[in-house]
């Protein structure tokens, strides 16, 4: 029992409860067990002693060996440490080198990559810098090309660098800048040609002038000059007007815009700008072109220059200027030019200026023709100006004529000697065969105004022809126009001056001389035509008769002569001094009548130079006035009574006048013509003095009756006056039988006449 428990305890490592219980509960109690345990411990002690004795030697040996191993280990340790140090030492540098190598390799690889990248970038950059320099040098067109390359070739190749992006973003800006710059250039150019175009025009004018003046002789001469001055001419200025202008900015600009794809816009812009310029050019800068030829010249120069340049651009191509556009602009311009010239020239009163302006316009037209521009309204303008020029000249000559007339004495020219005679004959074509033989002083039939006016008309023709020179008109047309103007001058201006002259009262003799003078002038028209055909080199035209160029003036003069005479007649009749109650007529005509008639015959004799027509008119006017004045005297209501004596006195005076009228005071009258003026007065007097009432009352109202011209009213008026006078003279005396009868008859007649008057209404 106790043994088993110890074994159990020794066999089991844990779970010793049951063992301990058996020990505790077993019989012999725990002494037995402790004894057993002691025995057991002693057993184990002996066994340990035995074991120790057995292993002692080995142990010592082991220790001895261990000690040996220890030294060896120490030795080895040192050696290994040594080696380790050595290795450590040698690998350290190696490692550094290796690292260096790795780094170098990496750098090398980086460099290669960079170079590769750089090589891609480099052209871009050079191009970019080229672009910059080009832009700076204002070489916009190459710049644009470069830009193109940059944008489409180089940039995509390079890749997404920041600077590339910057460049890319720069490109539109640059492009804009180039466009702006080229626009600025264009503006400069436009400004420039605005300044230059007058010079261009001036040069073109000069060339045209030279061309117009070109003749064989001139060409030969200029060739000779050329030979002499060939060296100096070699590098003389531009040969053509348009060479004055450098068009390159324009072309550049055009190229730039075509590159930019804005060619159309550019063309539009250019045309718009030029159109605007054209408008500016067309407004005369100096305001009044009619002030001086210089302003006119510069105006035309500017216009011509402008269109020469446009025309040049048209021929140069490039589509900047189309023919349609040019013609369109030109037609606008030429209308404007024409109207400007028209307004300005219409104010000119200086013929010399007119001439130079005309010369300029002719040159202008010729230059336009050279450049193929239509000249259309301009020749018309020249014609209008011709009319105005004629007007201006005529105004000038009006002054001249007025001067001549104001200072004229209207006396026939009298020359004292051959020299004076020749002087007149040189001035005026007068057929002086008859005069030639007369002794000095010789007297021409005309006054000084005839040669003076003739000379002036010639002067006028000279001045007038100056205008038509160079208009390319044929001699015949020029001559016809000159004839027209000359006769216009005479028939309008000179006649106008004459009319003005007639407005103030002129002495009779002057009037006569004027009529005579106008005839000589009219006759001289043929010589004027001859003169015109000589200087225009055309055939003499004689078909156009001078006609009655001065008829109006002559009519005026004749009218005034008539008025003059009538006035004198009036003055004489104002001297009338009838005694209306005269008992017995004196048997003689009144003195104012005899004075008047002798005055009239004197005057009419001195009018013998006058054309018959005028003399007849004058004498008609005078007699008519006498007749009507005398008749009015008789019927004047202020004269209440007329005695038969007074009536007879008046009858006597009328007879005087009738004798004068019948005596053919001037030739060329119809038989008895002048007497007709006295007819009604005569019939009235005959009726009253002849007391022929029965036939009057019988014939009244019948055409061609003996007293057809006496109205019942006039007859009654006169009869009343007679009755009044008779009553007055016989107031106190007793009427005799026959006187009573007469009175009775008178009353009856008066009654009848009154009735007739009432019938007539």
């Amino acid at each position: 029992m106790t043994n088993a428990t110890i074994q159990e305890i020794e066999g089991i490592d844990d779970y010793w409860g049951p063992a301990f219980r058996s020990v505790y509960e077993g019989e012999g109690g725990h002494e037995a067990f402790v004894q057993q345990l002691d025995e057991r411990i002693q057993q184990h002690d002996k066994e340990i002693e035995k074991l120790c004795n057995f292993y002692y030697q080995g142990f010592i040996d082991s220790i001895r060996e261990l000690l040996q191993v220890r030294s060896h280990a120490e030795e080895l340790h040192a050696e290994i440490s040594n080696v380790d140090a050595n290795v450590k030492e040698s690998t350290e540098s190696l490692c550094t080198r290796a690292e260096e190598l790795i780094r170098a390799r990496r750098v090398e690889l980086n460099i290669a990559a960079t170079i590769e990248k750089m090589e891609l970038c480099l052209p871009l950059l050079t191009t970019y810098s080229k672009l910059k320099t080009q832009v700076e040098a204002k070489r916009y067109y190459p710049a644009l090309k470069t830009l193109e390359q940059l944008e489409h070739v180089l940039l995509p190749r390079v890749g997404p660098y920041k600077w590339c992006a910057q460049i890319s973003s720069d490109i539109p800006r640059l492009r804009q800048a180039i466009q702006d710059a080229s626009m600025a250039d264009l503006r400069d150019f436009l400004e420039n040609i605005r300044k230059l175009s007058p010079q261009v025009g001036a040069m073109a004018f000069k060339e045209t002038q030279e061309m117009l003046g070109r003749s064989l002789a001139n060409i030969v001469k200029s060739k000779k000059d050329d030979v002499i001055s060939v060296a100096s001419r070699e590098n003389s200025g531009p040969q053509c007007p348009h060479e004055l202008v450098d068009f390159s900015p324009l072309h550049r600009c055009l190229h730039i815009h075509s590159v930019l794809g804005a060619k159309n816009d550019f063309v539009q812009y250019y045309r718009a700008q030029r159109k605007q310029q054209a408008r500016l050019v067309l407004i005369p800068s100096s305001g009044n072109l009619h002030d001086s030829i210089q302003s006119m010249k510069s105006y035309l120069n500017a216009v011509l220059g402008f269109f020469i340049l446009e025309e040049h651009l048209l021929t140069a191509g490039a589509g900047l200027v189309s023919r349609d556009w040019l013609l369109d602009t030109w037609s606008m311009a030429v209308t404007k030019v024409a109207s400007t010239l028209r307004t300005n020239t219409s104010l000119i009163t200086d013929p010399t200026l007119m001439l130079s302006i005309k010369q300029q316009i002719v040159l202008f037209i010729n230059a336009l023709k050279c450049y193929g521009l239509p000249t259309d309204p301009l020749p018309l303008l020249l014609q209008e100006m011709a009319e105005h020029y004629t007007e201006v000249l005529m105004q000038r000559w009006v002054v001249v004529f007025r001067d001549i007339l104001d200072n004229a004495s209207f006396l026939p020219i009298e020359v004292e000697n051959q020299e004076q005679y020749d002087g007149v004959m040189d001035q005026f074509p007068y057929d002086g065969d008859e005069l030639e033989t007369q002794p000095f002083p010789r007297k021409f039939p005309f006054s000084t105004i005839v040669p003076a006016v003739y000379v002036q008309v010639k002067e006028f023709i000279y001045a007038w022809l100056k205008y038509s020179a160079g208009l390319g008109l044929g001699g015949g047309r020029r001559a016809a126009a000159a004839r027209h103007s000359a006769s216009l001058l005479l028939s309008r201006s000179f006649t106008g001056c004459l009319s003005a002259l007639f407005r103030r009262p002129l002495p009779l003799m002057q009037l006569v001389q004027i009529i005579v003078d106008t005839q000589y002038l009219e006759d001289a028209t043929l010589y004027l035509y001859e003169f015109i055909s000589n200087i225009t080199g055309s055939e003499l035209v004689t078909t156009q008769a001078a006609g009655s160029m001065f008829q109006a003036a002559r009519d005026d003069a004749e009218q005034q002569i008539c008025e003059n005479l009538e006035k004198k007649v009036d003055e004489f009749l104002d001297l009338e001094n009838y005694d209306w109650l005269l008992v017995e007529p004196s048997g003689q005509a009144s003195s104012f009548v005899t004075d008047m008639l002798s005055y009239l015959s004197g005057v009419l004799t001195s009018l013998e130079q006058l054309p018959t027509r005028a003399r007849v008119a004058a004498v008609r006017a005078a007699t008519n006035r006498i007749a009507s004045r005398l008749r009015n005297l008789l019927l004047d209501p202020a004269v209440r009574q007329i005695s038969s004596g007074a009536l007879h006195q008046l009858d006597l005076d009328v007879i005087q006048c009738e004798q004068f009228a019948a005596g053919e005071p001037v030739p060329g009258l119809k038989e008895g013509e002048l007497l007709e003026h006295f007819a009604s007065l005569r019939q009235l007097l005959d009726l009253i003095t002849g007391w022929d009432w029965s036939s009057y009352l019988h014939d009244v109202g019948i055409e061609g009756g003996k007293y057809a011209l006496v109205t019942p009213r006039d007859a009654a008026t006169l009869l009343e006056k007679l009755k009044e006078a008779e009553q007055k003279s016989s107031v106190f005396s007793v009427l005799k039988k026959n006187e009573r009868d007469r009175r009775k008859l008178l009353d009856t007649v008066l009654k009848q006449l009154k009735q007739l008057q009432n019938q007539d209404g």
Partner: protein
Amino acid sequence: MAKTYDYLFKLLLIGDSGVGKTSILFRFSEDAFNISFISTIGIDFKIRTIDLDGKKVKLQIWDTAGQERFRTITTAYYRGSMGIMLVYDVTNEKSFENIKNWIRNIEENASADVEKMILGNKCDLDAKRQVSKERGEQLAIEYQIKFVETSAKDSLNVEYAFYTLARDIKAKMEKKQEASNPPGNRSGVHQLKDSDRQRKPTSWLSRCSLL
């Protein structure tokens, strides 16, 4: 009917060409002056009515051409004239000397009792004067004719001359009238003219009496 005038006097201006007869007449009738010289051709007349002592006097003044070639026309007018102005130019000696010839002309052609007066015209041109006023006076006294220096340009003494001549004619006529017959209802002018006429029978007047 009221007459427009009381007297009608016919006056005549004679003298050398260019002495200013027409200018004097122009000054008197129009009160104007024209510097330019237009010589009179043949004969002309102007009428001006003046007031003389309350009487209306019509002056019919005949202006004759001084030039020799018109002499025949002008002398015909001497006879009817009641007053004659003899005009010379104080700047023209010859015109003054010719006054004697003109007086002889009057004596030959005009009626004997014609009133005369000598005018020395252009007295404004003192610098060019050739005939002194005294010589003019002298000559006038010799012939017992009134004398005055005139200037048509400056309107000097022109009115005076015509008024004086007209007044003298009027006085002479009135005196004559009183002497011959007491004043009737007719003005003396006609009577004077009538007597004038009777002394001068012209050819066509005689024809007239036949009618």
